[in-house]
């Protein structure tokens, strides 16, 4: 199969980050990068990974199926990972959940008819002080309201994404200047 050069180069970098006799350690990062490049881990990619790492195919699949972010099927264009754990729910994520379902016309795990969005509920994304939060592909969005959510979805639909909240805004007293 054709593995893109960029991925091959990336794999060399990954191998380099481990002692030479520990090629197996490259498995998770390699799959992560392969998925980034190709959208998912296809059977062909599994074979390539097994070969280049030097482990059995069964081993590749065992690891692949353990990690929830790794997938064997292509996700749709925009993967919306919407948090519904404690801090987000305390900040109104359950109401917002109904809103996002209505807005997209889909439920957890489904994909919109136009193939643009897949909705997935997740349990804590580490943005609890900025709740409610979600990720769209690799972009982080915080302090969601129905209006902000609509703007973000529309932005992706129209090809002009709302800039993500990067870096995470400073809330609380961290970084505040204090009298010495």
């Amino acid at each position, binding site marked *: 199969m054709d593995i893109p050069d960029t991925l091959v180069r990336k794999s060399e970098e990954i191998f380099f*980050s*481990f*002692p030479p006799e*520990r090629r*197996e*350690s*490259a*498995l*998770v*990062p390699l*799959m*992560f990068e392969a998925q980034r490049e190709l959208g998912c881990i296809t059977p062909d990619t599994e074979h390539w990974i097994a070969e280049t*790492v030097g*482990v059995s195919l069964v081993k590749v699949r*065992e*690891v692949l199926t*353990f*990690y*929830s*972010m*790794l997938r064997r099927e292509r996700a749709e264009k925009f993967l919306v*990972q919407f948090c*519904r*754990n*404690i*801090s987000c*729910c*305390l*900040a109104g994520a359950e109401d917002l959940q109904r809103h996002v379902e209505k807005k997209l016309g889909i439920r957890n795990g489904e994909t919109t008819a136009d193939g643009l969005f897949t909705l997935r509920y*997740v*349990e*804590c*994304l*580490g*943005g*609890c*002080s*900025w*709740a409610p939060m979600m*990720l769209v592909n*690799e*972009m*982080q969005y915080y302090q969601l309201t129905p209006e902000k959510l609509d703007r973000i979805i529309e932005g992706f639909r129209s090809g002009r994404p709302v800039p*993500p909240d*990067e*870096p*995470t805004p*400073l*809330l*609380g*007293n*961290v*970084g*505040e*200047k*204090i*009298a*010495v």
Partner: protein
Amino acid sequence: MTSSNGTRLLSRNFALPGQANLDTALKRGAYEMLKRALKMKPEEVTTVVKASGLRGHGGAGFSAGMKWGFVPKDVFPRYVCVNADESEPGTCKDRLILEYDPHLLIEGALICAWAVQAERIYIYVRGEYFYPTRIVQRAIDEARAKGFVGENILGSGWSCHVHLGTGAGQYICGEETGLIESLEGKKGWPRLKPPFYPAAVGLWGKPTIVNNVETLAFVPRIIEIGAEKFLSYGTPKAGGPTLFSLSGSVNRPGVYELPTGVPLKTLIYDCGGGIKDGRRLKAVIPGGSSSHILTAEECENLKMDFESVVAAGSMLGSAAVMVIDETVSIPRLMVWMTRFYAHESCGQCTPCREGTGWLLRLATRILEGRGRRRDLDDLYELAENIDGKTICALGQAVAWPTKSYITKFRHEFEALIQE
């Protein structure tokens, strides 16, 4: 560096522009403490860290200096793993360090590596942290280009490489032996104990120090101000400040750096601006989703250090404080909480794998008004049967809060049970 509302020791540069870039960080003294540490003997560094009272900020609160001291003599190579898996609901402080001051973390990890004479550092970042990962990767590359990382660091003759590790969506890879398994290219199943300490037998069977991001980011500050001064920012048993992740029903959620041992009320009312919409406080989860819930009365005079929170019947854990107001239903909270653990159980031990699923099903049934009288006792008994009967601490992490919700708010569950 202290004021009535806190101590900004670790986070003092977060708000300054460009702190994540090496050139700017250097102007503010980045890597100066590495230089100083490299002039000390490795054991001396460990001694200072031990004396500073620095305790782990990842959850267990273990003395950092003591852990570093567990590395057996004469076994090489050695490794340092930075635990940046930050996945416990409520906890969101490490991401700020990664995003705003990655060089402080790298410097701290290098000082740790010098102290234990490690040759490689892995920074294991959770997969969902795309943006923080990019920042840390860039910081590692910059530091390598300037000779702070790699061969013969700053002409000391000592070499240490720093690499990124990749999480891919499993909370269990935050458990230190799960993290190590994952780094070895396996599924992140926590290891059976003994051996008890990765410091003796860790990555690829070699001595490995696993420390949380915040723990290591404090290390350069300890070298800077000295152990005694650092200790004075906390309690005699837990030196230095703590980054508290404040979330839930407060007016000003956020991450607050405060002296360890600060009164909980200072955090919630002075810092957090009190309860949202003028409501009453019902309860607090003081140390991440794994900790026992405390009622408003129990919070009254609570101080936020390891010993005090344990004495109050809970734990400081990752210092993630989730505030719960009078309108929040505890049976509903039970569903959110158990859903997390049912989702995150790695499946290795039967009590945890089956038990977490059952907890969630029973909790959901009760919340939806389909509960039976004995469900509540079953729920408690299930938790009891998980507690202490599993390979890793995830078992108790779901059992403890479950039992505390039922014991302290039994009437709320009973009110939902019809028959």
